[in-house]
Structure formats: structure tokens, C-alpha cells
């Protein structure tokens, strides 16, 4: 039997603390769509996505209405296009991105991910064509998200790809300069990418996945912060316990939504991603959770320890609440998407260096960070290399989503709109790494890759 307190607590979480399900993501395998003729390939991709995801949005809305919990995004992820298009006669994969965009709009989803290539150890011809197509694809489409895996603990880091991705980020920024380099907000560079991530921009449907799966990303930093307000001044043991209990409750909602969505759509349930995902709205900030623990402003000394505790406790609490946990599963710290992070950059407490340190203990990486437009491609590559090294050595996923905004410099504000938010431009080191990046080749896999 439910108690009145239980019901009030749940509805307070939803109404006052912004508890929501961040995304229902349908992963769709496109391996059956391959064709040597480019046009046929694009038609098959469009037809398959629109057939599989036909009822996704309506089902998501019906579940949200029935249970009274908001489901913010409905998304689609697909097999990395570098694989799907590899056997085609297309020299550029921009037409494939256009087909994905058209399909996403037809089914009404917010984003479609999977314009991706995985080149941790080396390139295929399909990978080269896809990466070369990224700037134009992101400039000419609205909903397509792209990701490139440039390293892993098992393979090491492909430094040729790291160098190239610095150039690709710059080109994407230039092609979308009229929109404050918005294209770069749809491009993620990964080390240790995961195949079942439901969050954008890095979602793709890995080749180890089934035909079509339903995965759910939960949210709820506001709920965690509210719960921590009750244990102010208490020891960390109590802080950790409070976060675990709250994460359990949040995840149970995600599990319910995922089960219902997969049942109603007749698709396999994939995973629940336990990430705490913030939004720029007041009361939905991961930075504010850290500050609730006693940090004056996010980025001050102590922030990394606070984040480590948060990330670990969220996983421990969420793990038992779901039958299958996967994806990225950790606290996100996307700067422009988090009110507390935005404020912390504005007051000068949060720097790029501190963000890098924070990514050592949380998912996922240097995310949604606007940097000066004159940041060189080599510097961006060097930032990617540093972040990939953290992921490779620590056997975790790390990512870089930097936005070098043309014509803007440190302190100026950039607005991306919606959930992507806004942020001041952050300072990067003025000291270069040109020669380091020019070397190319591969950083060998670390000793911890030899686990057999």
C-alpha cells in the first residue's frame, strides 16, 4: 500500500525538483540497409528509420501523460554510418546525413545520432569519407549528431585521427559561424565510446546491439540537490547514502518508462543510463549538487572529490533499480547546459583545467565548452589528446565537445538555445602543441589493456 508521503514525495520531485526522463532513445541497426548505389542506400535508410520509429514519439507522449512524468526527448541512434555506407559508391556521405535528417523530422524526434566513425586503431575508406563529410553534414542538417571514436584502452590513441579531428572541429565551426558554431555542439570525439549510449550528441547504435532497442536516460540533479538539503553539515557517509537512495528512486522511474516503452513499441529493452543530466533551467544543475555539499562555487578546490562521491553514489543507487544498466552512466558536466556551471565560469571559479580534472572522476568529458574562435586546430587536437589519455588510462569513456566560436573571445556569451543552453567563452592555454600534434601515428595501448 502506498502512503500519502510517498505520493507527495514523487510529485514534489516532478513538480518542484524537475524530475524527468531525459530521453527515450530508439537504437536502430542499419546494417540491413547497405547498397552499392548511394541513392538506394539513402532511400533504404530513410524507409527503415521511418518504419521502425513510426510510433516512438506518440508512445513517449502517451507514457508521459499516463504516469505524469515528463519525457523530454525522443531520439534515434543508428549504426555508425561509416560502416553502413562503406560499400556504397558515395564519395561524400553528406547525402546520408540528409536522409537521416529527413527521417528524424518525419518521425518527429529531437535528434538522430550515428553519423559516426570508430577509428581507434586505424581508418577504413568509409571512415575517411565519413570524417571528411562531417563539417558539411552538420552545417546542412538540423538534427543529425556526429561522433568519432579516436581511442580506447584496448587500442591506444590514433593520433592521426586526433590531429584530423582538430581540423574538423574548426571547419565545422567555420561552416556554422553564423550560428555561433552550432555545428560543433552536435559533434563528439570519444575515447572508449559505448555502443548503447542514449544521450546526444554521442549516441550511436553499436554493431553488438540487436535490430532495434529502447534505451532510457534518466535525469534529476534537482532531486538530488533537494535531498541533500536535508543533510546539511552531516558527514559524507550520510551524503553518499542520501544520494544512493535518491538515485534509486529516480532510476526506478526510468526503468518503468523503459519497460513500458519497449512493451508498447514491441522492441527489445536495451539499458537504463544512470547519468545525472542537467539542463540550463534553474534547479536542474549538477554544479549546484556539488555546491550543496559545501563547495562555495563549482570549480573551487574540493570540487573533484565532491564529484567523485556523487558519481559513485549515483551508480550504486541506480544499479539495483534497473535490470540492465549501461550507456555512459555517470554525472554529466556539460558547461553550457548547466546553470551552476555557467555561473561558475562567469565568476571565474571554473576553468578548463579544473574541468579536465573533474572528467577523471565522472562521465563523460569536456562537454559543451565554448572556447575562443582563434583557438588553433592543433590546440583543439591537444585538448582531445589529453582527454583521450584520461579515458585510455582510466579505462573509462571520455569525450570532447568543444565549440570554437568564430569572432568571439574569452568572456563573451554564446547562446545555443534550448537544452544546449548558453555559456561564456572559456580561456585555453596560450602555449601551443603544434609539433606534438604533427607527429601523428599511434599512442600504444597501455599496460592495463593486457588483462587476459
Amino acid at each position, binding site marked *: 500500500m*502506498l*502512503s*500519502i508521503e*510517498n*505520493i*507527495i*514525495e*514523487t*510529485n514534489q520531485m516532478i513538480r518542484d525538483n524537475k524530475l524527468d526522463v531525459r530521453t527515450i532513445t530508439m537504437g536502430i541497426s542499419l546494417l540491413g540497409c547497405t547498397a552499392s548505389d548511394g541513392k538506394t542506400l539513402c532511400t533504404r535508410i530513410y524507409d527503415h528509420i521511418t518504419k521502425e520509429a513510426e510510433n516512438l514519439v506518440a508512445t513517449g507522449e502517451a507514457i508521459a*501523460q*499516463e*504516469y*505524469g*512524468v515528463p519525457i523530454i526527448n525522443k531520439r534515434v541512434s543508428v549504426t555508425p554510418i561509416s560502416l553502413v555506407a562503406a560499400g556504397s559508391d558515395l564519395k561524400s556521405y553528406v547525402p546520408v546525413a540528409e536522409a537521416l535528417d529527413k527521417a528524424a523530422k518525419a518521425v518527429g524526434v529531437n535528434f538522430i545520432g550515428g553519423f559516426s566513425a570508430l577509428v581507434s586503431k586505424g581508418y577504413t575508406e568509409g571512415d575517411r569519407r565519413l570524417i571528411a563529410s562531417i563539417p558539411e553534414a552538420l552545417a546542412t542538417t538540423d538534427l543529425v549528431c556526429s561522433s568519432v571514436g579516436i581511442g580506447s584502452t584496448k587500442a591506444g590513441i590514433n593520433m592521426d585521427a586526433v590531429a584530423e579531428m582538430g581540423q574538423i572541429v574548426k571547419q565545422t565551426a567555420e561552416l556554422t559561424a553564423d550560428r555561433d558554431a552550432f555545428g560543433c555542439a552536435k559533434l563528439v570525439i570519444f575515447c572508449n565510446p559505448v555502443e548503447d549510449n542514449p544521450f546526444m550528441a554521442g549516441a550511436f547504435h553499436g554493431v553488438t546491439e540487436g535490430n532495434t532497442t529502447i534505451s532510457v536516460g534518466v535525469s534529476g540533479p534537482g532531486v538530488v540537490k533537494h535531498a541533500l538539503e536535508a543533510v546539511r553539515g552531516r558527514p559524507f557517509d550520510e551524503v553518499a547514502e542520501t544520494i544512493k537512495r535518491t538515485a534509486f*528512486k529516480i532510476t*526506478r*522511474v526510468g*526503468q*518503468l518508462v523503459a519497460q513500458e516503452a519497449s512493451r508498447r513499441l514491441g522492441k527489445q529493452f536495451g539499458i537504463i543510463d544512470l547519468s545525472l543530466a542537467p539542463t540550463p533551467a534553474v534547479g536542474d544543475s549538477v554544479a549546484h549538487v556539488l555546491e550543496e555539499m559545501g563547495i562555495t562555487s563549482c570549480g573551487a578546490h574540493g570540487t573533484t572529490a565532491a564529484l567523485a562521491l556523487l558519481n559513485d553514489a549515483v551508480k550504486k543507487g541506480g544499479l539495483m533499480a534497473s535490470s540492465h544498466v549501461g550507456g555512459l552512466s555517470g554525472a554529466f558536466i556539460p558547461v553550457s547546459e548547466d546553470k551552476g556551471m555557467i555561473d561558475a565560469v562567469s565568476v571565474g571559479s571554473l576553468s578548463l583545467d579544473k574541468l579536465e580534472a573533474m572528467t577523471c572522476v565522472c562521465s563523460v568529458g569536456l562537454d559543451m565548452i565554448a572556447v575562443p574562435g582563434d583557438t588553433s586546430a592543433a590546440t583543439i587536437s591537444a585538448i582531445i589528446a589529453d582527454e583521450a589519455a584520461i579515458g585510455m588510462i582510466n579505462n573509462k569513456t571520455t569525450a570532447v565537445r568543444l565549440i570554437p566560436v568564430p569572432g568571439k573571445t574569452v568572456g563573451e556569451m554564446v547562446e545555443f538555445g534550448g537544452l544546449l543552453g548558453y555559456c561564456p567563452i572559456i580561456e585555453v592555454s596560450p602555449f601551443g602543441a603544434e609539433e606534438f600534434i604533427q607527429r601523428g601515428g599511434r599512442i600504444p595501448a597501455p599496460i592495463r589493456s593486457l588483462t587476459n
Partner: protein
Amino acid sequence: MKVVVTVVGVDRVGIIARVATVLAENNVNIVSINQTILDGMFNMIMMCEAADPTALQKVQEALTVEGEQLGVQIMAQHADIFLSMHRVG
């Protein structure tokens, strides 16, 4: 189908009567009623049973209209959201 109806707002005459009327009109049976004042606000929770699971949306719409007239917030939700969060097993 178990439905939880929640009413939050400033207390006034006739809230229970009018909410109960809407539920009766939509063939929803009230199983129990709980009421408390929390943070100075009137909170009422009704555990209900809807014979027709497809009728929930219609009930929700009717209750929203009634809530606007009464000046209170009324929600009707599938009970599983609460059971999932607060019950293991």
C-alpha cells in the same frame, strides 16, 4: 487500472464533492481518500480504480478543467509510477 488522483491547492468548500463527481461521471471508483495539510497547502490523495484503462486521458482532461475552476492543481496518474519508486519487488 489503479489511478492516483492528487489535489494540491488552497482549501475551499466543495473540492471533494466536485472531484468525486468528475470521477463518478467517468466511471472511476474511489477506493480510499487521504487528506493532509502540508506546508500550509491542502493535499488530498484518492486511490481509485478505473474499469476502462483507455479512459485515463479523458479523466485527466476533465479533472484539469475542474481544477482550473476550483483554483487547485489536480493530477491523475497511473499508480505504477509511485509503486515503482517506493516499493521493491
